[in-house]
């Protein structure tokens, strides 16, 4: 059963990710991203990280993809003209991809993976909270500032010019 679920979610994630890469319509791409995220969330559940799956769906599916769709509608972009990519880019992409695939394939043979064996029960919400508020307190604070400047940045970048007129 677990095997079947893994293959199902993995396939879902991969196929819909392929959709993101190849689809001509940005709306389809965004929907592909959404499906891919669902697949990844399923994998998270299989990995005993249900909380992460939940957060992923909440943040990504709920906010990020919605934001993408919203912007696509707002900008009303036309379909991508099917111009061939410049040859150099194609070569670079193929080379880069080939290198990565070779690397991944050789992983199976060469890597000494020190898998310690998974424990039966996954971490609970409490475990996360303990970590976040003890060891990782400083990064949490920093992320707070990160979100603050991101918010300020969005405001600065998208406030209408005539409103932003300042008399400093």
């Amino acid at each position, binding site marked *: 059963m677990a095997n079947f679920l893994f293959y199902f979610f993995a396939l879902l994630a991969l196929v819909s990710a392929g959709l993101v890469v190849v689809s001509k319509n940005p709306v389809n791409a965004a929907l592909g991203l959404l499906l891919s995220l669902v697949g990844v969330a399923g994998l998270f559940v299989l*990995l005993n990280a249900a909380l992460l799956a939940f957060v992923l769906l909440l943040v990504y599916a709920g906010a990020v993809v919605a*934001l993408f769709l919203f912007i696509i509608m707002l900008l009303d972009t036309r379909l991508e003209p099917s111009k061939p990519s410049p040859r150099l880019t194609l070569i670079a992409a193929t080379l880069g991809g080939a290198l990565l695939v070779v690397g991944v394939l050789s992983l199976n043979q060469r890597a000494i993976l020190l898998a310690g064996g998974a424990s039966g029960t996954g971490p609970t919400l409490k475990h996360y909270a303990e970590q976040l508020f003890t060891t990782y307190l400083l990064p949490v604070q920093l992320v707070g500032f990160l979100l603050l400047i991101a918010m300020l940045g969005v405001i600065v970048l998208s406030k209408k010019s005539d409103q932003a007129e300042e008399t400093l």
Partner: protein
Amino acid sequence: MIIDLPHYLLLSAVLFVLGFFGVLLRKNTLVIYMCLELMLIAATIALAAFSHFNDTLDGNVFVFFILTIAAAEVAVGLAIIVALFRQRGTVQVEALNHLRH
């Protein structure tokens, strides 16, 4: 056959490569941006898998941070794309060649 760490790693790597291809090949900046998100997500799969099979929590906690950061990145990125669209009326990469002229 037992689903083990290498399976997850392979999946993560393939997803990462897919996203990488998308960034290089696509012309629509919005789609490019989605592909970048795909790359980040691919990394989180590997992270969660390592975390699970090594029985350490740190990887999962890191995923939290990555998700937060990615959301912030998306917000800023979309703001820039929208602002550029207002000026140029397009989000295609070909239109991004006005510098150096």
